[in-house]
């Protein structure tokens, strides 16, 4: 009975989260093999446009940021808003793209700078996007990120249990487990004890 439950947890957790989990391991692979992937020599592509806008409310508030996104038609997660010498600056982020909007103090003109990163920047963006601070779409992403993280622990725990129940000759499994946990614990102890 317990074996069946553990097996179903192991199976369905993987079926549900597999694609999202793969995304994390693939983007992580690109990050650790940074030099293998081509760099864009010219750096990120920057597109700058200036246009006039109309807004009835206060130009510095969060609703204004929403208004900018809706009227100028771009997506992304709001990551900052601050007052500058000439007005306000809003920043947004989505994987591979940073958007910066400088709004005049009168709130009637906006300069939009869209910085598009290369493939590595896109992978980096996907991998590092977390924190529950809205909007809803990005909080959903963070929730899936948490589920993917939790699933890794679930796979390890249920996997060890399933192996223990399933396998008659345990020597190879014990060796694999010992190597794995020996290396992890040994590395942590090494870092704690070395100068």
């Amino acid at each position, binding site marked *: 009975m317990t074996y069946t439950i553990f097996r179903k947890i192991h*199976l*369905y957790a*993987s*079926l*549900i*989260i*597999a*694609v*999202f*989990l*793969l995304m*994390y*391991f693939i983007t*992580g*692979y690109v*990050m*650790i*093999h940074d030099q293998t992937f081509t760099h864009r020599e010219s750096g990120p592509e920057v597109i700058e446009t200036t246009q006039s806008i109309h807004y009835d409310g206060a130009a510095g508030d969060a609703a204004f940021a929403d208004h900018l996104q809706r009227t100028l038609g*771009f997506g*992304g*997660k709001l990551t900052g808003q601050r007052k500058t010498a000439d007005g306000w600056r809003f920043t*947004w982020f*989505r*994987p*591979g793209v940073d958007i910066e909007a400088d709004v005049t103090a009168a709130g009637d003109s906006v300069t939009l700078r869209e910085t598009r990163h290369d493939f590595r920047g*896109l992978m980096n963006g*996907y991998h590092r*996007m*977390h*924190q*529950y601070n809205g909007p809803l*779409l990005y909080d*959903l*992403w*963070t929730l899936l*990120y948490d589920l*993917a*993280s*939790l699933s890794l*622990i679930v*796979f*390890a*725990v249920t*996997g060890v249990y399933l*192996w223990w129940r399933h*396998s008659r000759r345990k020597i*190879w*499994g014990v060796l*694999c*487990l010992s*190597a*794995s946990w020996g*290396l*992890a614990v040994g*590395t*942590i102890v*090494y*870092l*704690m004890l*070395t100068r």
Partner: protein
Amino acid sequence: MRKWLMNLHLYGGLLCSSYLVLYGLTSLQFNHAWLLPEKTTSTIEWSAPVPMPSTFNKQAVADHVKAQLDLPGWVHPWSIQRDREQNFTLEVSRPGKHYAIHYDPRAAVAVVTEQRRNVAAIMRNLHGLYHGVPGLPWLRPWGWFTELTNWIVLLAVGTGIVLFAYRSRERRTNFIVMGVCGVLSLGFILYIGLVG
């Protein structure tokens, strides 16, 4: 064939089980810091003689001080400062330790404030650590372990799909669950990347 795939899935999973737990815990910690709170467990201050360098270029002085003190880790370029009296401050860190260094070249002395970090901080530093740490040769196997875990996870997903496909009783349901969740996940990933 099935037995081979099962063994690959099973023993590969066992071999990287510790890394999966570490990945899982540290990834959760990025969103929920209270799960694995990072702390400084001790701070000590010590000093050591460091001869005057041949150049006063900031990065070269920092590298010289680190080498003379025989400290493992990375010098943080943004931390290197030089005051009017030509004294230098810099920071060096490695998983589990942080060193704040004040160097007086004329007195040829470096004063080091050494902070030891707890296990949670070490675990977080080990998340995805692949290139090793300068001066810590025994950390190289961890880089291989990172690489191995990446490949094993990719293999485990592939072999897992083939293995459940062998079970005719559950095959249809499983493919439907995986298909629906896969399409939704992929759609969501693409939507976030392309539209936001």
